């Protein structure tokens, strides 16, 4: 009993010391994440890293004007250009993103010039996306300032683009109709492929869903893991790991995750695809160019999206279906595009593939789900 007291005092003293150190000298990214005000985090830009760090803290606190003012090359573009680079010219995921964390990695340092790698992790309602910039940092007297590598978004000139794609509207049964009167039949959909896999996170159900009807369908898939005694272990839905709008004869992959579940406990899986009528348009058509499978390490599917229509697509979601040599489903991946898709303007994407599965991947198929104001109209 008495021998434990010195150890307890030691632990308490160490904890207090660490709290004091953490409060007085916080890690900048962690402090920004914790919501500390920018002023207390800003240091004199006496080193290239500090200059980049100060810029990132300003971005985290949406201090756009101060961030712009700190740049060494601000004479080359306006504050609006800087803002459009970070937030997008058209409404997109970037517009509603907030800077979650950032990483500053020095690459090279000279007397008057340095190269620093800045990785910005932006947070959105559909997850995070990463923006990586290689920054040149220049010395100006006793201070360092960042030369921002502005990425100018392409601009679409004002014009009228005629499109003649189909559109489907739905008129439902009215309140005055007899109970025996017909309503419009829900679209017929079918699961054409399903494959459960065990991952570190739990059981993952992969599959593909076909709209075999002649009208658009709003689709979703639910799955229930059934134990050997017939009881339901868990029910989950595909949530956003699916293209919810399916045009006639279109196929979407889906992925349903059961965190913490184990395949050894599962006797069967009950699949429940649902579909409902939806007013929709066949526009926009998105071409997926130059799809390439990059091998491990850093296995991924890369390519470019080209909006072939006249409509600006605010948010694009790429879903990739990966197969092995026998055509067996191996994985379903996805990637949100953080910038709006402008007509005829390629936008790159890079969809990661789990490293342990990448060596089994032989072929792939990619589809794009698009979202614009007004839903699926």
């Amino acid at each position, binding site marked *: 009993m008495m021998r434990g007291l010195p150890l307890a005092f030691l632990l308490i003293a160490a904890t207090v010391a660490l709290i004091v150190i953490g409060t007085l000298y916080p890690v900048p990214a962690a402090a920004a994440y914790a919501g500390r005000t920018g002023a207390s985090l800003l240091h004199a830009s006496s080193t290239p890293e500090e200059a980049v760090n100060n810029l990132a803290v300003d971005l985290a606190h949406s201090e756009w004007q101060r961030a712009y003012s700190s740049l060494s090359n601000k004479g080359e573009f306006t504050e609006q250009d800087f803002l459009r680079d970070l937030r997008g010219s058209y409404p997109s995921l970037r517009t509603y993103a907030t800077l979650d964390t950032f990483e500053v990695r020095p690459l090279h340092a000279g007397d008057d010039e340095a190269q620093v790698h800045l990785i910005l992790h932006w947070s959105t309602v559909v997850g995070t996306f990463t923006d990586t910039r290689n920054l040149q940092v220049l010395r100006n007297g006793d201070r360092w300032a960042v030369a921002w590598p502005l990425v100018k978004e392409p601009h679409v000139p004002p014009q009228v683009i005629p499109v*003649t*794609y*189909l559109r*489907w509207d739905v008129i439902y049964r009215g309140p005055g109709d*007899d*109970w*025996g009167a*017909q*309503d*419009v*039949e829900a679209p017929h959909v079918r699961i*054409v492929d399903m494959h459960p896999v065990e991952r570190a996170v739990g059981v993952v159900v992969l599959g593909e869903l*076909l*709209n*075999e*009807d*002649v*009208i*658009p369908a709003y689709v979703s898939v639910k799955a229930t893991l059934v134990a050997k005694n017939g009881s339901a272990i868990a029910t989950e839905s595909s949530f956003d790991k699916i293209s919810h709008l399916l*045009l*006639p*004869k*279109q*196929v979407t992959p889906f992925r349903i995750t059961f965190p913490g579940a184990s395949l050894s406990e599962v006797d069967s899986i009950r699949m429940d695809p649902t579909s409902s009528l939806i007013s929709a348009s*066949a526009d926009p*058509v*998105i*071409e*997926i*160019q*130059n*799809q*390439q*499978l990059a091998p491990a390490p850093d296995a991924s599917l890369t*390519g470019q999206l080209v909006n*072939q229509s006249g409509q600006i697509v605010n948010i694009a979601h790429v879903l990739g279906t990966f197969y092995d040599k026998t055509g067996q489903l191996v994985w379903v991946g996805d990637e949100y595009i953080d910038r709006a898709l402008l007509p005829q303007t390629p936008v790159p994407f890079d969809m990661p593939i789990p490293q342990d599965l990448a060596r089994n991947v032989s072929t*792939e*198929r*990619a*589809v794009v789900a698009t979202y614009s104001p007004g839903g699926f109209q």
Partner: protein
Amino acid sequence: MNRWLTWAVAGLILPVIQPALGQSGDLNLPRTVVAGTALSIPVAGSGQAVLYIAGPSQVIRREVMPGQPLSIAAEELNNAGHYVVALVTQSSTQVGQFDVVPSTQPASLSFLARPSRLPVGLQNSISGAVYVFDVFHNLITTPTAVSFQLSVPAGATQSRTVETRDGAAWTEMDSTPKEGNAKFVAQAGSISTTRVIQEVPGDPCGLKMSAHQVGDKVQLATDPLQDCSGNPVADGTIVTFTESWNGSQTSVDVPLKHGIAEAQVPAHDGANISVATGVVMGNEIHWESRE
């Protein structure tokens, strides 16, 4: 509201009627009365009397003069079901019962036809169920002949006649090989009801594309798409063109327009270009520049 009121009134008079069933005499009543017909009830005895008639959704109370028959008008007994009658006087209670049965003359049909949309050429895929009602919306439970007819503008008509059982008749029909809006008619007596069944093309058959160079692109176009019965596939159907070249792939999902799907992909010598719609694969083209 009316139903609650009926039950409330019936609840009040039934305690009177139930003990009375075991005493006094019975009323002279017909066993059945057709809904919507008049009824005359002879009333014997002397002094003041009250007649109660309690039935489904309905209670009638009348003060009657003994010795004169009581008339119930044609429009008063509409609801089919079992009715209890009690004639209560100061000295006795007479009871009786009768059934109001539906008229045998159909006046309306409830017609459930499913599905409202289906592919062509499927056997026993369309079901129709009919409930036959009289003019007072009583289900006619006596066997009634119901004829079903399914017809498309350019095709043979399928007909079937089915007798109702417990008021319902049902049948199954095949979808026709020709697409279009089929009229599904159910008829009982002179009453008919129509539903529209949309018969749509099936899966595409013989998907075939052709390619020609336009500048630095390959212009791809399918032949007019048809199903296996020769019906044109619906516009808006998604066709996927995929070009594989040198380890990379380009794909585009395009909707069918005027029966044809068209797309442009980069022109690469040695590229393999394939086409598919849904789970149906089409032909493959090995692209070599014609220059």
